[in-house]
């Protein structure tokens, strides 16, 4: 099976549990197991080749420009870890099937588990450090989900958050370190990096890269002082603890140290940082573990201790120590996973995992007792179990290591760690299972079904088999994996029980005897431990996190204080500064164009515009006046367009102006009519300065543009030349809109339609809330004119309606060849319709509306889209237009272009959007009790006549 498929299978399989849970819990579990089994078989197929010393590779260029390739490779180390991940994963899946209760969402659990599994396999198979980093982060995320699986438990949530914070922080450091490493070597491919030991260790950036990478490894593998998250992660369901926190995820850090061992190890920096950290972690973890009463907490600290042991071995930097590290990784994974599962069984059956409430389970749970004892003795390092072998070799390696010229400090501390290890291992067995049977267990304990103890039993069998026949069972695996770590010749070592009488044996005996004495003294020691003051990692972590959060909040609140005007000022200034910098740092072409003469008409227009703008600023507090002044500015702008050879723009600007003013008037109806004078003179001065600066900058830029020639040749010549032969129209602006740039226009009418729908939706939400109720009940303003629908206006608008629509149609039809087109025609027709609303009232007009405006927008977009799709039938790209000339007597020859159908879409969309916007706004005016009048006009003398006659 291809390596990428092995890594991808768990991710693909993660889709299945959520579906299969509908078929039942068994189906869900077996499907998940099948996914993992398939991946495992796929991996094992490669095993013989890897054992022969081959390296399996899979290369796929992903983003080669960034050096990011989906390259995978499988060597001995990868095989060992991938085998552990998939193999133990399979056992965990089976175990979890029986561990999870009916109330736990099992589909979710297996999905998270497979995601995690995929990420882990990805890490160990990656041949690209960037890819590895992606998988690394994925393990942090998926383990966050798994630790917090029991969302209802606050410990679970807090533990998950802590784990994510610590490992995520380490992940960030790791990214930095890996990027430095990649930069030193010039490649992000691991196989290339691994061949460049000399370059890396000679680089001045070696130490920063080393520290950053080790931060990532230490946080992930719970090394001192980052060890505190692991015990808190024990709030997770036990299968998660057994899988993530003993066998796999916490070993990711070890894996990376082992992976990069050939290039990073061997320097004094490596030795002192890694070996010292490992040593401290090993001793500290073992000491704390002895005093933990919670079975899982004890195992968690024991895991911390054993991870420290392996880290220390890798830190020694000698090939022999590396072999021991690899061997202990295998042994630890087997006995610790078995122990976690046993602890889970005890918890599951006895409903407590507090050692002080347990004891005497030996007869009640004989199977669990056997498994836990085998695994526990292995953890203690008793002969005939696999833990003994690697511990002996560890002590051997430690006894030959000198720390700062001191030959006994490492062996002594290592023996101390082993001594405590013996003590807590025996405490686990003795205090949980031995002793008298009690009668106050929270539940009646008994052995679980086969399904639950099968997995730990298998692991316990492995513990014994490896313990008795190490060379036969794991000899080749240790050899291949170790040679992958060392990257060279294997040192002399032998995996066997009896190494003769040597230092390690004496140290081992001392550890066992000392450990048993410690256990005997546990009661007084425990009392002393409880009395002794000691730092609580969680409290420190929470305080630190709280302080960081407060600082971040203070910064955000300071910057983001809700004063929009300040943001606007800062934004405007920033744009001005950016533009000015760009202007002065670049080179602008010298003025090359001749200045056009100024006639009297433009001068008058300019004068009007400047005065209107100035008055608008001066009198903006009178909102109605400001609106009128804005109308003047808008009109001058449209006249300017007309004067400067842009008739289409003039028409558009003019009609948009009308619609905008109506819109703002409608809004002003409900807004205060004046703006209070709130700004002090200092603030007005500041705003004035910003405004003048902005005006000068933009005006100056405009002048520079106007006076210079094009720096590159304009593409407009193409449009002018091809408008008639290609698009069949002489109005080039319209042809550009509906033909050359039709796709742009298509997008724009969609935006317009969306804007109108947004307005409609906002109106709905405002009017259906308390605001709507308040508006409906508002009293009639006595200042309002009594005549809501003046007779003159009603009559005039109704007469004008057909004329206006006719003008719209005319403008539309001529649009392709002369100024006009869908946009302008749409606006004109919309104005004609709006006039009816204004003159005759909302109710009257709405009652006569045949089609909802939403539908008109949709029709417009469909018309445009189908025109575009139509060209597919002629085997042309989307929106290719065609045209022809037709004779329809008696109208004479005229032209039909497909672009016209597109323009119909534009037209409809503009009409619908403008009308929907204005109609939405005018709905605010609706009062409770308003009914459409049954009469065409408010005032009708003929209707009033009989009443007058009666009076007479």
């Amino acid at each position: 099976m291809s390596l990428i498929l092995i890594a991808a299978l768990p991710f693909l399989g993660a889709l299945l549990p959520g579906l299969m849970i509908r078929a039942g819990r068994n189906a869900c579990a077996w499907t998940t197991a099948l996914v993992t089994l398939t991946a495992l078989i796929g991996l094992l197929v490669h095993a013989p080749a890897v054992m022969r010393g081959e390296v399996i590779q899979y290369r796929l260029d992903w983003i080669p420009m960034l050096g990011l390739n989906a390259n995978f490779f499988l060597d001995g180390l990868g095989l060992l870890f991938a085998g552990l991940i998939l193999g133990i994963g399979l056992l965990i899946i089976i175990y979890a099937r029986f561990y999870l209760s009916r109330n736990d969402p099992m589909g979710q659990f297996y999905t998270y588990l497979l995601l995690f599994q995929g990420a882990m396999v990805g890490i160990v198979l990656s041949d690209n450090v960037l890819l590895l980093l992606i998988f690394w982060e994925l393990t942090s995320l998926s383990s966050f989900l798994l630790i917090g699986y029991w969302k209802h438990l606050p410990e679970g949530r807090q533990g998950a958050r802590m784990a994510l914070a610590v490992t995520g922080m380490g992940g960030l450091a790791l990214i930095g370190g890996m990027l430095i490493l990649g930069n030193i070597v010039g490649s992000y491919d691991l196989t290339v990096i691994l061949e460049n030991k000399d370059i890396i260790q000679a680089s001045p950036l070696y130490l920063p890269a080393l520290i950053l990478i080790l931060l990532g490894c230490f946080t992930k593998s719970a090394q001192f002082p980052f060890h505190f998250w692991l015990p808190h992660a024990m709030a997770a369901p036990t299968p998660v603890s057994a899988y993530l926190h003993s066998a796999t995820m916490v070993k990711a850090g070890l894996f990376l140290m082992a992976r990069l061992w050939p290039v990073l190890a061997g320097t004094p920096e490596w030795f002192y940082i890694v070996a010292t950290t490992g040593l401290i972690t090993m001793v500290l973890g073992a000491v704390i573990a002895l005093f933990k009463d919670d079975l899982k907490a004890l195992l968690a600290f024991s895991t911390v201790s054993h991870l420290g042991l392996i880290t220390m071995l890798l830190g020694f930097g000698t090939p022999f120590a590396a072999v021991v590290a690899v061997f202990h990784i295998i042994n630890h994974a087997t006995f610790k996973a078995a122990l976690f599962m046993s602890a889970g069984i005890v918890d599951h059956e006895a409903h407590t995992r507090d050692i002080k409430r347990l004891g005497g389970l030996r007869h009640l749970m004989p199977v669990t007792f056997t498994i836990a004892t085998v695994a526990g003795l292995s953890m203690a390092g008793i002969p005939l179990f696999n833990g003994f072998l690697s511990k002996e070799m560890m002590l051997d390696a430690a006894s030959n290591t000198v720390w700062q010229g001191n030959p006994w400090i490492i062996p002594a501390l290592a023996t101390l760690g082993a001594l405590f290890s013996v003590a807590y291992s025996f405490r686990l067995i003795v205090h949980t299972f031995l002793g008298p049977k009690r009668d106050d267990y929270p539940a009646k304990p008994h052995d679980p079904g086969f399904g639950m103890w099968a997995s730990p039993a298998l692991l316990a069998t492995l513990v014994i088999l490896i313990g008795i026949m190490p060379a036969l069972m794991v000899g080749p695996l240790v050899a291949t994996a170790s040679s992958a770590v060392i990257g060279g010749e294997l040192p002399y070592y032998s995996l066997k029980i009896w190494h003769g009488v040597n230092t390690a044996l004496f140290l081992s005996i001392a550890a066992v005897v000392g450990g048993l004495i410690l256990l005997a003294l546990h009661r007084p020691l425990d009392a002393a431990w409880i009395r002794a003051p000691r730092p609580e990692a969680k409290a420190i972590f929470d305080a630190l996190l709280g302080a960081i959060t407060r600082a971040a909040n203070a910064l955000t609140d300071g910057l983001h204080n809700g004063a929009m005007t300040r943001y606007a000022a800062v934004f405007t200034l920033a744009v001005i500064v950016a533009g000015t910098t760009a202007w002065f740092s670049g080179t602008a072409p010298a003025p090359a164009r001749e200045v056009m003469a100024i006639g009297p008409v433009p001068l008058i227009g300019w004068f009007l515009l400047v005065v209107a703008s100035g008055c608008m600023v001066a009198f903006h507090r009178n909102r109605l006046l400001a609106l009128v002044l804005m109308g003047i500015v808008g009109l001058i702008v449209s006249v300017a367009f007309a004067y400067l050879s842009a008739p289409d723009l003039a028409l558009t600007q003019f009609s948009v102006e009308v619609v905008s003013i109506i819109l703002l008037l409608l809004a002003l109806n409900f807004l205060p009519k004046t703006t209070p004078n709130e700004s002090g003179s200092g603030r007005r001065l500041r705003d004035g300065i910003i405004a003048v600066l902005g005006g000068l900058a933009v005006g100056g830029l405009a002048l520079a543009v106007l006076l210079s020639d094009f720096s590159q040749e304009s593409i407009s010549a193409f449009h002018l030349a091809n408008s008639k032969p290609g698009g069949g129209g002489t109005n080039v602006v319209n042809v550009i809109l509906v033909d050359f740039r039709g796709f742009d226009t298509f997008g724009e009418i969609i935006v317009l339609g969306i804007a109108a729908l947004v307005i409609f939706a906002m109106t709905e939400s405002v009017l259906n809330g308390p605001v709507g109720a308040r508006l409906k009940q508002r009293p009639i303003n006595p200042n309002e004119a009594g005549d809501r629908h003046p007779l003159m206006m009603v009559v005039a608008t109704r007469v004008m309606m057909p004329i206006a629509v006719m003008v719209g149609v005319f403008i539309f039809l001529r649009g392709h060849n002369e100024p006009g087109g869908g946009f302008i025609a749409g606006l004109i027709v919309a104005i004609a319709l709006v006039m009816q609303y204004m003159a005759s009232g909302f109710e009257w007009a709405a009652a006569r509306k045949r089609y909802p405006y939403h539908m008109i927008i949709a029709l417009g977009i469909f018309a445009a889209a189908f025109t575009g799709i139509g060209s597919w039938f002629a085997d042309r790209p989307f929106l290719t237009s065609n045209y022809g000339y037709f004779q329809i007597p008696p109208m004479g020859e005229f032209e039909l272009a497909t672009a016209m159908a597109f323009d119909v879409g534009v037209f409809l969309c503009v009409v619908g959007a403008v009308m929907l916007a204005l109609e939405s706004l005018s709905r605010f005016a609706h009062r409770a009790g308003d009914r459409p009048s049954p009469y065409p006009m408010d005032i009708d003398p003929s209707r009033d006549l009989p009443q007058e006659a009666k009076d007479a």
Partner: protein
Amino acid sequence: MEYLLATAIGVMTAAGIYLLLRQRTFPVILGISMLTYAVNLFLFASGRVAINLPPVLLNQTPTYTDPLPQALVLTAIVISFGMTAVVVLMGLGAFLSARTDHIDLARTGDQAEESGK
């Protein structure tokens, strides 16, 4: 002519920015509209200006003004109307709901508590 156009754009920009920095919704909307005029004219000016040379192909004139900025500005005008309408409605809805058209958020006790958490 170029000077007139450039100064007009500058004046409208300045007026727009000044109104944009006011503290109530309505002047801000007017300011945005003024900026829209200025920006549209600026875009239009990027095609340089000409008098009596509309980009409508008639046989008597051999040269035409640049049609491309015109097409861009035409849709810009229509779209900016749509955006103005959205902003107007947001301002209106905010005023009716909050009973104030002040745009700067006043820091209330609730918010301070929220951010302190």
